[in-house]
C-alpha cells in the first residue's frame, strides 16, 4: 500500500536519516542527511523520533501526492512550496489531506530541502539506517517519478510547531579545520594557502565530496600514498591540487593525501552550498 505517490521526483531526492556510522571497516560510508540540523528540526516539528527518515531534495524539490492525511514540515532550503496550489509555510506544521499534492519547486537560500512527514518515511533499513548511500548503493535508490512511498507508524510524541529553528551565521561560511594527517606531504605554506583563500564550490560536487576551486595546493611528496582510512570532512588533495572535502557518502579509504580535516560540527555547513558558492577555512589549534 502506498501512502505517497511521487508525481515528480526532482533531480535528486533521496531518503535520509541520521545515517549508518560504525561500518567504515567494511567499506560502508556514514551517509545520512547532509544538513543534519534541518532534519532534526523537521522531525521535532512533526513529533518524530530523531532517528526518523525524511526526504532530502536537491536543487529542485519533488511533487508528492498524498493518499492519506499527513502532517509535514519543510526545512532546510526554501522552495515556495504549495499544497494543492496554496502556499505551504516553511519550518512549520503543514497539514496535507488525502488526494492533495505537496509541490516543491526550485530551492532558494540553499540547495537541500527536507520533507519530514509525521511517522517518518518507511523503507527497508540496511545496517540500521534507511539512508540512501549513492556511492555504496545501500538504502532505497533515489526517488523516480511514479514511485510509491510508505509512511511509518504514528509516533507517541505530539508535534511541536513551536520548535526552535537552527540558525546559521550570515556571510561566507568559515569551516574550522584540524591540520593533517598528511600535511607533511605538502609544500610549506599549503595549509596557510588553504586557510587564506576563498574557495568556490565546483558544480561537480555531490553527497560524496565537495570539490573546490582556488589556488593550487602544492605537494612536495609525489609518491603514491598507500590507501588509508578517511574521516568525513577530510580534505583530500588529488594531483590537480584542487581540494575535495569528503562528505557523507565518501569512500572509506583512499590514497590521496589529506592536508587537513574539517571539524565534525562544521561539516554540515557545506550542506547548503550550491555551485559557485564561496567558503573559507580557519585552522583550529
Amino acid at each position, binding site marked *: 500500500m502506498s501512502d505517497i505517490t511521487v508525481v515528480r521526483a526532482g533531480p535528486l531526492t533521496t531518503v535520509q536519516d541520521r545515517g549508518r556510522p560504525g561500518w567504515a571497516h567494511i567499506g560502508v560510508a556514514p551517509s545520512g542527511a547532509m544538513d543534519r540540523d534541518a532534519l532534526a528540526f523537521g522531525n521535532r516539528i512533526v513529533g518524530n523520533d530523531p532517528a526518523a527518515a525524511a526526504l532530502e531534495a536537491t536543487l529542485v524539490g519533488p511533487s508528492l501526492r498524498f493518499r492519506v492525511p499527513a502532517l509535514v514540515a519543510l526545512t532546510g532550503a526554501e522552495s515556495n512550496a504549495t499544497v494543492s496550489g496554496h502556499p505551504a509555510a516553511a519550518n512549520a506544521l503543514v497539514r496535507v489531506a488525502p488526494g492533495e499534492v505537496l509541490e516543491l519547486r526550485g530551492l532558494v537560500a540553499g540547495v537541500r530541502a527536507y520533507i519530514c512527514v509525521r511517522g517518518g518515511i518507511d523503507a527497508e533499513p540496511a545496517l540500521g539506517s534507511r539512508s540512501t548511500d549513492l556511492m555504496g548503493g545501500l538504502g532505497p535508490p533515489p526517488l523516480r517519478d511514479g514511485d510509491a512511498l510508505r509512511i511509518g507508524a504514528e509516533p507517541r510524541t505530539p508535534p511541536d510547531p513551536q520548535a526552535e529553528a537552527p540558525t546559521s551565521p550570515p556571510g561566507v561560511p568559515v569551516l574550522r579545520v584540524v591540520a593533517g594527517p598528511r600535511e607533511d606531504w605538502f609544500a610549506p605554506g599549503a595549509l596557510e594557502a588553504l586557510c587564506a583563500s576563498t574557495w568556490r564550490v565546483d558544480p561537480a560536487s555531490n553527497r560524496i565530496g565537495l570539490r573546490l576551486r582556488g589556488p593550487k595546493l602544492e605537494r612536495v611528496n609525489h609518491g603514491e600514498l598507500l590507501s588509508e582510512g578517511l574521516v568525513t570532512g577530510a580534505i583530500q588533495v588529488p594531483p590537480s591540487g584542487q581540494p575535495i572535502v569528503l562528505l557523507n557518502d565518501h*569512500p572509506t579509504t583512499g590514497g590521496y593525501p589529506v592536508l587537513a580535516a574539517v571539524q565534525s560540527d562544521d561539516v554540515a555547513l557545506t550542506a547548503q552550498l550550491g555551485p559557485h558558492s564561496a567558503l573559507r577555512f580557519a585552522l583550529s589549534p
Partner: protein
Amino acid sequence: MSEIDLRRAGDRGALLDLADNGAAVRVARRLSASGRFLDVVPGHRTVLVTWTDDPPHEEILALAAEALAVPDERAPTRTVEIPAGYGGPDLDEVARLCGCSAEEVVSRHLASEYTVAFLGFAPGFGYLVGGDPRLTVPRLDVPRPRVPAGTVAIAGPYSGVYPRESPGGWRLIGATAVTLFDPARTPPALLAAGDAVRFVPE
C-alpha cells in the same frame, strides 16, 4: 613505543602509522574489540580510529602498544575460499603484460594464499595482498564505467572481487558467484581485514 606514530584526523579521529599490514590488522582488532570507538578502519599500513566525545589518545596508544607486544606471528585467521572461473576480458592482456600465457596467469592466481589487507572502495570490497609478484600489472588508464558484480580483478600488488556492479580501473581476469556483501547477513561482509583467502577453480 616508537613504532606508533599517532596523527590527528579531524577533531574526533586519529590515524596510526604502523610498520606493516600485519601490525595494522593486529592493532585494529584490539581497538575494535575494546568497543570504545565509533570506527576502527585498517588501511594498508595504518589504522584510523574515530570517536564521539573526548579525545582518547592515551587509551588508543596503550591498546595499540598492547596489540604490538604480542609476538609477531599472525593471529589465527579464517581462510575464505572463493570459487572462481577465469577468463575475464583482460586475461589475455594481463598475460601479455606479464610475458606468460593466460593459463599461467590463472595457475599463478590460483596458487597464492592471499591476505585481506583492508576493505574500502565499496561495501565488502577487500584489498587482497600476498599474490604472485609476477602478476603485478598497472591499473587501466581509463576506468571502466561498469564492472559486473563478482568480477575477479588485479591491479598493482592487489587482487579483489567487485561486490556489486560499479565503475572500476582494475584488470578483469575472472568471476565468482559468491556474494561478498549482503546488508541483511551477519556479518554483512564476507571478508574481514586479516582473513586468509584462496581462489579455487569453480
